[in-house]
């Protein structure tokens, strides 16, 4: 472990610029991630929010360079601690994966190997990266299981994955992810398969681990409730692009993109039995995007430029940007848009 430079260093931990990941289809290449730029500072929790097909998981896999054919990274940079991961050789990249950046998946049962004892799987992560000898691995695995609050870790290390509950399996996944003390953990829907009470425990654990292991966390989720309680900053994805970025408070108090506003407004709340304020239409399929802003067919605020050009990032506040022509200072519509009150969306 090299000590991290102090935060006075302006270099972000992770700086993604113009990342484009395409999937080859019979109808030609389709961009799952489209010209995506994103920065993460050390120690931060960034929530990447989006629905299925929005490209959030493809973004995670691109950072790890785990995109499988017919997908491929077509361009851009992924700078991690100053190095562009897309330019590393496969061997160097293997030293990054799991050791400096690790990934936690939604369904731990598929990520864990069913025929190996969990202690061996944790040990393997340590030995592969030269963080422990075979002799030492068992002891370190027990320590890690204890740190993710698994009761009686001495006997648990001999368990197979199927002997554990979903929540316990996710704790084992977290232990494996933390084994080599990475500085960035990417958690892709880590609690989606879990019950609400277990979800809360895993989110608490991730928060604790973040402090204890001095981590940065890229949390991929579709659940705005989780975002509100966990993230420092939020990036909202739609159809392969980040349509809005800002602090968690800005995102919930003054969402700037009509999609973000729509998501927040559509959540259950208000008077019981009242119709919800749904967003019309469906998520477009990658490869079948409308011209202009991909959200325009569903957007209540659509006006002329939206159907012809893709909106660039516009400032919506300090550290807060959105890809929406409503925010264009040149736009005649802008003053009206700026004065619009964010919709209220209390949980009750």
């Amino acid at each position, binding site marked *: 472990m090299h000590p991290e430079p102090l935060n006075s260093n302006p270099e972000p931990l992770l700086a993604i610029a113009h990342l484009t990941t395409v999937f080859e289809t019979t109808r030609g290449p389709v961009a799952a991630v489209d010209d995506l730029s994103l920065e993460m500072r050390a120690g931060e929790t960034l929530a990447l929010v989006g*629905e*299925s097909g929005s490209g959030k998981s493809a973004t995670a896999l691109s950072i790890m360079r785990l995109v499988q054919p017919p997908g491929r990274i077509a361009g851009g940079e992924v700078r991690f601690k100053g190095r562009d991961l897309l330019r590393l050789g496969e061997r160097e990249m293997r030293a990054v994966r799991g050791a400096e950046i690790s990934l936690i998946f939604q369904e731990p049962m598929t990520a864990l190997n069913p025929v190996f004892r969990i202690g061996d799987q944790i040990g393997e992560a340590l030995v592969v990266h030269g963080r422990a000898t075979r002799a030492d691995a068992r002891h370190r695995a027990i320590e890690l299981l204890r740190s993710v609050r698994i009761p009686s870790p001495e006997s648990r290390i001999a368990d197979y994955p199927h002997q554990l509950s*979903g929540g316990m399996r996710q704790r084992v996944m977290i232990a494996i992810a933390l084994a080599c003390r990475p500085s960035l953990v990417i958690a892709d829907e880590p609690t989606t398969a879990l*019950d*609400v*009470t*277990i*979800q*809360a*425990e895993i*989110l*608490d654990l991730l928060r604790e681990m973040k402090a204890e292991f001095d981590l940065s966390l890229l949390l991929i989720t*579709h*659940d*705005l*409730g*989780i*975002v*509100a*309680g966990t993230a420092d900053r939020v990036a909202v994805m739609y159809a392969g692009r980040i349509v809005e970025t800002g602090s*968690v*408070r800005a995102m*919930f108090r003054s969402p700037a993109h009509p*999609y973000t506003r*729509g*998501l*927040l407004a*559509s*959540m*259950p*709340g*208000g008077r*019981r*039995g*009242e*119709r*919800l*304020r*749904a*967003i*019309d239409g*469906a*998520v477009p399929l990658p490869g079948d995007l409308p011209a202009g802003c991909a959200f325009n067919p*569903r957007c209540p605020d659509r006006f002329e430029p939206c159907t012809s050009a893709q909106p660039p990032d516009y400032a919506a506040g300090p550290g807060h940007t959105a890809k929406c022509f409503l925010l264009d200072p040149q736009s005649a519509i802008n003053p009206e848009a700026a004065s619009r009150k964010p919709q209220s*969306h*209390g*949980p*009750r």
Partner: protein
Amino acid sequence: MALVEVSHLVKHFARGGGLFRGGAQVAAVDDVSFTIDQGETFGLVGESGSGKTTTGRCMLRLTEPTSGDVRFRGESVLAFSRARLRRARREMQIVFQDPYSSLNPRMRARQIVEEPLVIHRLGDRAARRGRVGELFRLVGLDPAHLERYPHEFSGGQRQRIGLARALALDPSFVVLDEPVSALDVSVQAQVVNLLMDLQRQLKLTYLFIAHDLRLVEHICGRVAVMYLGKIVEMGPTASLFASPQHAYTKALLSAIPIPDPDAPRQRIVLDPASVDKSAVLKEVAKGHWAAV
């Protein structure tokens, strides 16, 4: 008036063991009783494995209960003959969670919606076609898409097809088993609105099985909380959410992620040892029962 009455429902499954080894019995549903009034949306919540889906399936006899009784309009569903059960099924329908796996991929949308009418020998071909078109419009689908296959529809549209099929026989009671949890967030609200609209329009009674407690709070008039096969708390949604009494309910409600970064978070952790498994439901407020 109660449309459906469930009393002392029990369902045992054999755990492990296999056919000849006589494995242990596990009570998936353990002495569950509740009633659902005409026109009501009754919520059933609990963790996976708590028995909520099994309860719903037993009520329609999609799973045969071990013991107990289910009465529909006062008649015992469990005592029904095959012929009588078949007629009863016209009134009691179910919509499943996953619109991707619950529709036959080799059937056209029209055939999927029409099938119950064919099985129950209702109407001639022309009448059935007319009814399918009507159902399509009812659930907000375009009848021009009747001849498409399931994969040509989005998730939200597929769930509408599932709903059209469930409504084909004009049921009065529908079990909704996690009807929106497989859908994209931006589409969930549309389907929730549709469910509420259909309920008003067709005077439907719903059993709403869900893990999304925010949604349950929004659409259910009453709710029952299941824990390890038993109902541990039941009552009007407003009362139960405002003052949960059972340790599990308290833990469950405190774990709901609140979509507000400034909301205070005080999670209550359940100590399973603190749950008195022999406690019976008693009335703690008007219509609000808890096993404490």
